[in-house]
């Protein structure tokens, strides 16, 4: 099918500008169901991820409301467990990953001068697999036994003992994995085969580079997760004993397989965020990115190293000291390429003509807070320290600094940055700045105190806590409610801009110099680069 469409698209080049393909004549809902246009699909990805973000956010609010005071107030412990589980699963697989795939869909063809993705029909499938997965996740709350309360890591043996909600979750993970793999194959093929003439690999915008690397990570690691949950499924229903000690299996094996996927997954989330930041910071510094080649190599090193450090998530399972030492040093090694990137971003700003519009503010927020999250990551990399901090709120604080202030803030930076290009409208700059400042203040209020809770020994994923943790938890909950409400402001900003935003100028950001800004009108028309540009 893709072959037909590609041939069609190419044939179209020769004929010029008429725009009447059979495949986008449906209107209304069916237009979105049947669309193969990368911009439509990118838009759907972004809206889907934002809907999932709000859904997972409501779960975070339930968690923080329960933790507002010691003792059990609002929910049962079982429900609390499923809240932490689905909050994690939905935010990782439903919100952050689809958001960056949405960026990839919108931006990669426009940034490399391609007319569309390589496999437009498969692209449509990649997106439309997501809603059924989301429905399965929601449906798991409705089956007997309720949602799976096993944590987003889905560790055996808890998973092998859960009710049927676990099966629905496993199928949802399977579907999400298929969607990611299809999306990644599409992205790799697009980047490798559909670049405009003259767009060599080392001339690609860094966002495209980061997605190329991320897509390879996805193709290599998502199937491993699929394998892990498949083993869980067969352990549950088909009498195998991969993780069942009574049958000769080993629950620790699950952790190894899961984290072999899980650590690359962390970079699958972080690396496209690096890509967005690498576009935004040069644009608002009015300088080219400092150390472009070193950025490419650093990102590649991070990706390769990510497959070699998985067991730092499981120092306490009882591994030999030699293993702990290896994983400790290998993990610390990742700080080197990450440091290269951070210093390159800072050097890009050095002596630049900086302005601080909302995308730049979010990029700077990212830079500051992601680095902080990286430092706590180094602390956790040390085996002796991690033995104390394993499964405490210190870990929760650490990964929210890199996931929320890292990935989410960079996604916001990207949305504000490309919004004019996508819609031809400008968002309200004042409200955008409000969104940033409210987000960053409430974010720190929520998560900075969790470092102290973790150091004092408060365990994660527990609905109750002892009295000495009460004040910090109260502060954290207040911060979380504030953060949650601030994100509704983002929804308002976007809807307001789409409905009544001012018309965007052709080049709203002086320093933006990639193809979508220099070669395309604003807003980008439905079909772009049917005749590929020549890149010098």
């Amino acid at each position, binding site marked *: 099918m*893709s*072959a037909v469409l*590609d*041939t069609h698209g*190419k*044939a179209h080049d020769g004929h010029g500008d008429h725009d009447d393909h059979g495949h986008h004549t449906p209107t209304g809902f069916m237009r979105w169901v049947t669309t193969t246009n990368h911009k439509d699909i990118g838009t759907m990805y972004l809206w889907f991820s934002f809907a999932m973000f709000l859904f997972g956010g409501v779960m975070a609010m339930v968690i923080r409301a329960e933790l507002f005071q010691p003792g059990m107030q609002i929910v049962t412990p079982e429900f609390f467990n499923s809240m932490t589980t689905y909050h994690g699963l939905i935010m990782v697989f439903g919100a952050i990953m689809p958001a960056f795939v949405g960026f990839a869909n919108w931006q990669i063809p426009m940034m490399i001068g391609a007319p569309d993705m*390589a*496999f437009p029909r498969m692209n449509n499938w990649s997106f439309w697999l997501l809603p059924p997965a989301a429905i399965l996740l929601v449906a798991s709350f409705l089956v007997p036994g309720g949602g799976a309360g096993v944590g987003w890591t889905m560790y055996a043996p808890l998973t092998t003992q859960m009710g049927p909600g676990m099966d629905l979750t496993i199928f949802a993970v399977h579907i999400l994995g298929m969607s990611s*793999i299809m999306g*990644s*194959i599409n992205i*790799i*093929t697009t980047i*490798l*085969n*559909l670049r405009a003439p003259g767009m060599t690999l080392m001339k690609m915008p860094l966002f495209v580079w980061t997605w190329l690397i991320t897509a390879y990570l996805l*193709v*290599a*690691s*998502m*199937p*491993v*997760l*699929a*394998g*892990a949950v*498949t*083993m869980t499924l067969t352990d549950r229903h088909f009498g195998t004993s*991969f993780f069942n000690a009574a049958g000769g299996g*080993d629950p620790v*094996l699950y952790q*190894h*397989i899961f984290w*072999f996927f899980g650590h690359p997954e962390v970079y699958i989330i972080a690396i496209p965020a690096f890509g967005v930041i690498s576009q935004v910071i040069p644009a608002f510094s009015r300088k080219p990115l400092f150390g472009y080649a070193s950025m490419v190599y650093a990102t590649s090193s991070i990706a390769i190293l990510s497959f070699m450090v998985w067991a730092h998530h499981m120092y306490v399972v*009882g*591994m*030999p000291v030699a*293993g702990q030492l290896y994983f400790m040093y290998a993990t610390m090694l990742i700080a080197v390429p990450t440091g290269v990137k951070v210093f390159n971003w800072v050097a890009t700003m050095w002596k630049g003509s900086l302005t601080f519009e909302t995308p730049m503010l979010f990029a700077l927020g990212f830079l500051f807070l992601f680095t902080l999250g990286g430092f706590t990551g180094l602390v956790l990399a040390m085996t002796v320290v991690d033995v104390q901090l394993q499964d405490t709120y210190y870990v929760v604080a650490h990964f929210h600094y890199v996931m929320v202030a890292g990935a989410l803030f960079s996604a916001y930076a990207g949305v504000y940055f490309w919004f004019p290009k996508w819609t031809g409208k400008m968002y309200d700059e004042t409200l955008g700045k409000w969104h940033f400042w409210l987000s960053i203040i409430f974010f720190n209020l929520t998560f900075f105190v969790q470092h102290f809770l973790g150091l004092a020994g408060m365990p994660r994923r527990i609905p109750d806590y002892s009295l000495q943790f009460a004040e910090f938890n109260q502060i954290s909950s207040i911060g979380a409610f504030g953060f949650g409400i601030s994100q509704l402001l983002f929804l308002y900003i976007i809807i307001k801009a789409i409905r009544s935003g001012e018309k965007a100028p052709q080049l709203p950001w002086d320093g933006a110099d990639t193809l979508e800004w220099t070669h395309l009108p604003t807003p980008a028309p439905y079909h772009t680069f049917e005749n590929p540009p020549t890149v010098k």
Partner: protein
Amino acid sequence: MSTADSIVSANRLLLRKLLVVSVLMFGFAFALVPFYEKICEVAGLRDIFRSDEVAAKNTQVDMSRSVAVEFDSNTQRLAWTFRPLASGLAAHPGAVMHVEYEVRNTLDRPVTGQAVPSYGPQLAGQYFRKLECFCFQQQTLAPGEVRRMPVVFVIDPNLPKDIGTITLSYTFFEVAGTQKRPG
């Protein structure tokens, strides 16, 4: 059209290669199962008896010398007869040794006593490791009761070379306040 065709076939080729990679990685998850078994075997992670073996190896019995251990017994204002079954033995440092004492309550009432050890020379005390001893608890004997009680000990191999003989002496005291007074 020929360039378009070549791009299409290049795309399909890449699609197939990447699909093969994902299928292989799915298989890799399952390949980790025997790999993990092997790692556990090599690293000895599954060998739950191993820690005992290590402990046993660490108890190095120094066969190059033996130390004479003499047993002595006394009572302090207590009408018990108290004696070791053997007056002495020769022990290699590091070896686990076992001796018994016998005590008889000659009174017509139950008596609770506590044995207190002392060592000669005094320095030897810190190298004399008792694993089991009747002196760890108070002993209560019924009127006329006879009891045999064990002492299990190891002499630390770090015992200074110039100590050739250790005297272990126990003294039994009656524990005050346990005697039932008439009335």
